[in-house]
């Protein structure tokens, strides 16, 4: 007996005909869906589409790894993806053999002999993986019910449909095995298990036919679901650009506008029309998985803001053609202002959607066009060059008793130290600034500060006043051009990110280092050594603008490791302190993000909570006050810890 794939056994011609006809309908229906979708997306740049396709294909693994950050959900997804992928290839092979090769010559076959046995084994295995994955889905949806998941109709139909497809496939295989006798069961091992219960069944042919038809129809229905249901995330993944935290770009160039004296641009996300095609594809790919929501500090604290809801609301109004984002669509102002811009949602999304960008663009719309902003910080920046609204002349107060020089225009200086508004004005952060200066003095590192220093514009940009931001950026860039220096070191990660990632848009590439990197360099090149031992337990909180925006995480930990006797504890999950994106200036209702973040830390009972950002320090200090824990824990910037250890 020849071992080979037997096509359409026990299926009458008319049933096969029905299958072919319905496949054709399904294809037409699917193509129609693709057409509809593409008209929603308004794709015009197909070249970009292709390059996106290449880029995204290379990101499949990274995407899957992002999913696997959550074990259960990740594993489940991987099982389904692998299962479906193999089954799809398998089905294609059958189609290729039966409908192409065998039409040419009935003797042309691939699925024959040992190849067929391996094929059967792999397909059985794939089906098994798929079933396990799907059962995990159903268990999670029905029993675990994690908070972030809603059970919409499609969320239930899709897994059950696929489950039925898989199960019915195995039943059919089992029935085939039961009728044909128990051959090569070693390869169709799952089908064999199913077959056992069918061995002495009557009417097997009729039952087989009925199940075969339903199985075939399941597959016919599944195909259009890849465009009509959330399964569309699979094809869309490959054509939607991977968005990162850097996506928030200027939408005009102020100096050009002032030169041309023409204001012919729109600012911000006023209406859905402002979304470009790639953003449209990107938004439409969202499956509502809610990983971003779990990562969102504002959601965790007060549920006012869910990045998932933002994307879903945008998606709905895009599909329905509703226009005005902030009014009609109810992207509520409270959501827009609750965001701390930590970027966690962006780096969490497995399909590289950027909810943050739409929040920031909505802010731009609200602020730049309507002047609606819930804090006086912007006005303070405009009038006095700092968000605190303190006098310009007070900016120098922090360095009154220190040995600090101003840079001179005619002298090159190795290092410019940029203190930032917090370091200059916030009494707590002033101490950090002082520590950094003491540290540099002790190590004989030459540096200077700029007498023209003012706000870097970070807050203006994140709060949505792009015009003010660009005014400030242009002023600062002019200042930078006046001086000659090798590098600029920032005390504040927010200044750092602005110089590193935002100023290049205005033709200013700076060799900028965060103070963490500077200290790390000093540790590595041996300038910082033999620190006094510090017998304390330290938990490190990553500033978002170092971790999420600039991937500086290892350096901080290595700096801590260089201190003798110091023990560190790692807090498993990163959350923002609540200070970013204006959080420091916008009063929030309800649970405070900083208090919640503090609670993450005090569970491990460290002596010191270390961080590397003046906002984080002030948020934690405030949280200590609110929790009545002052004096129980110390909040320190890395440079304070290192400075006090210098002999």
């Amino acid at each position: 007996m020849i071992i080979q794939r037997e096509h359409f056994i026990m299926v009458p011609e008319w049933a096969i005909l029905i299958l072919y006809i319905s496949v054709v309908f399904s294809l037409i229906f699917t193509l129609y869906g693709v057409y509809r979708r593409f008209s929603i997306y308004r794709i015009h740049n197909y070249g970009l589409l292709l390059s996106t396709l290449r880029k995204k294909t290379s990101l499949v693994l990274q995407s899957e790894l992002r999913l696997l950050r959550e074990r259960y959900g990740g594993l489940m997804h991987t099982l389904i993806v692998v299962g479906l992928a193999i089954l799809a290839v398998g089905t294609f092979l059958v189609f290729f053999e039966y409908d192409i090769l065998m039409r040419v010559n009935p003797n042309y076959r691939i699925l024959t002999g040992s190849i067929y046995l391996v094929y059967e084994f792999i397909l059985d295995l794939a089906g098994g993986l798929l079933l396990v994955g799907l059962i995990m889905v159903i268990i999670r949806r029905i029993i675990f019910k994690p908070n972030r998941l809603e059970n919409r109709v499609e969320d239930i139909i899709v897994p059950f449909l696929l489950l039925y497809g898989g199960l019915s496939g195995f039943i059919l295989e089992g029935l085939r095995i039961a009728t044909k006798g128990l051959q090569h069961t070693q390869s169709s091992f799952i089908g064999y298990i199913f077959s056992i219960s069918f061995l002495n069944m009557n009417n097997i042919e009729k039952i087989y036919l009925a199940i075969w038809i339903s199985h075939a129809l399941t597959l016919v229905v599944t195909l259009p679901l890849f465009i009509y249901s959330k399964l569309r995330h699979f094809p869309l993944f490959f054509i939607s650009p991977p968005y990162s935290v850097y996506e928030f770009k200027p939408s005009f160039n102020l100096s050009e506008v002032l030169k041309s004296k023409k204001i012919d641009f729109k600012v911000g996300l006023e209406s859905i029309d402002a979304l470009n095609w790639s953003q449209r594809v990107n938004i439409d790919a969202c499956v509502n998985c809610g990983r971003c929501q779990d990562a969102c500090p504002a959601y965790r604290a007060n549920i006012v803001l869910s990045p998932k809801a933002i994307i879903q609301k945008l998606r709905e109004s895009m599909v329905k053609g509703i226009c005005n984002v902030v009014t009609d669509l109810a992207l509520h102002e409270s959501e827009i202002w609750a965001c701390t811009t930590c970027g966690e949602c962006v780096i969490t999304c497995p399909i590289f959607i950027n909810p943050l960008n739409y929040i920031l663009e909505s802010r731009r719309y609200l602020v730049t066009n309507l002047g609606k902003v819930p804090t006086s910080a912007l006005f303070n920046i405009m009038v006095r060059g700092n968000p605190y609204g303190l006098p310009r002349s007070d900016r120098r107060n922090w360095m009154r008793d220190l040995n600090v020089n101003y840079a001179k225009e005619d002298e090159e200086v190795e290092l410019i130290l940029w203190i930032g508004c917090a370091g200059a004005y916030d009494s707590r952060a002033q101490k950090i600034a002082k520590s950094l200066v003491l540290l540099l003095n002790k190590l004989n590192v030459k540096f200077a500060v700029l007498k023209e220093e003012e706000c870097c514009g970070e807050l203006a940009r994140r709060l949505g006043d792009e015009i003010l931001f660009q005014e400030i950026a242009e002023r600062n860039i002019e200042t930078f051009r006046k001086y000659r220096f090798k590098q600029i070191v920032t005390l504040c990660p927010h200044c750092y990110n602005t110089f590193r990632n935002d100023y290049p848009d205005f033709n200013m590439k700076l060799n900028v280092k965060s103070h963490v990197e500077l200290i790390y360099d000093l540790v590595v090149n041996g300038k910082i050594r033999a620190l006094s031992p510090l017998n304390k337990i330290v938990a490190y909180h990553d500033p978002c603008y170092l971790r999420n925006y600039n991937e500086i995480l290892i350096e901080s930990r290595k700096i801590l490791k260089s201190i003798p006797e110091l023990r560190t504890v790692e807090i498993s999950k990163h959350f923002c302190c609540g200070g970013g994106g204006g959080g420091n200036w916008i009063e929030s209702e309800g649970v405070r993000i900083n208090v919640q973040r503090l609670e993450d830390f005090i569970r491990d009972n460290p002596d010191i909570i270390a961080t590397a950002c003046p906002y984080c320090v002030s948020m934690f200090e405030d949280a200590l006050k609110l929790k009545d824990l002052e004096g129980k824990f110390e909040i320190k910037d890395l440079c304070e810890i290192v400075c006090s250890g210098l002999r």
Partner: protein
Amino acid sequence: MLNMVVGVKWVPDTADVKFDPAKGTLIREGVESIINPPDLNAIELALSIKEKYGGKVYVISMSPPAALKGLKIAIAMGADKAILLTDRRFAGADTLATSYTLAMAIRKIGSYDIIIFGEETIDSATGHVGPEVGEILGISHVSYIKRILNIDLTSKIIELEREVENGVEVYKSKLPIVVSVGVGVNNPRYPIPIRRLHAEIETDKYIEIWGLSNIDAELDRIGLQGSPTRVIKIIAAPTVQRRMEVFQYSKEVLNLMVKRLRECEVL
């Protein structure tokens, strides 16, 4: 339709102004100027009246040309038009001459219903200009108002509330009226950035610059010669010498403190 005129002063940010004791002058170099803070509340009040009752908001400022920057901010907040009164002959004015010049300019604007000032400026802190402008124009004036209760557009009667040391007063007057408001009576809105950009690019459309020739003012009532008062000298304010006895806390320290309070006749 109500016509509102808001008086705005472009003042050096007093927090940054230092005193040079050797020369006996204030050091104003490098000091940025700002809109006098309560004047922002005045603009806000005018805009909120406009929103409720309809009308037009004019902003007027007697300042050097650098004040254009401030007027653009006022436009960005939502003022319809700004007038910059600038002329060398206006210089050196005390509060009376300033009020006269402003009053003549306001008269030139033509119809006005409510004239609003910030209750005082952060540099000279007199609070004179509101009452003086009111008197010079011969219309009602009320200082330190807290809010407008009602404006009857047909009878042109305004009702407003103000706070004094021992209570709250409600006044009623026929328009026009001059009022002054303080910091804290409302929250001045953020100047709309895109409107600020418009004011920057099309300044002429929003801001008019008037000199002496644009208003009907008597020469001997403006500037230094129109000012009855003269500043004869400025000295640094004497500061109280503090004892600065600082101790780490202990219960004995409190006893010492009570002793000191007795010695200094505070208790």
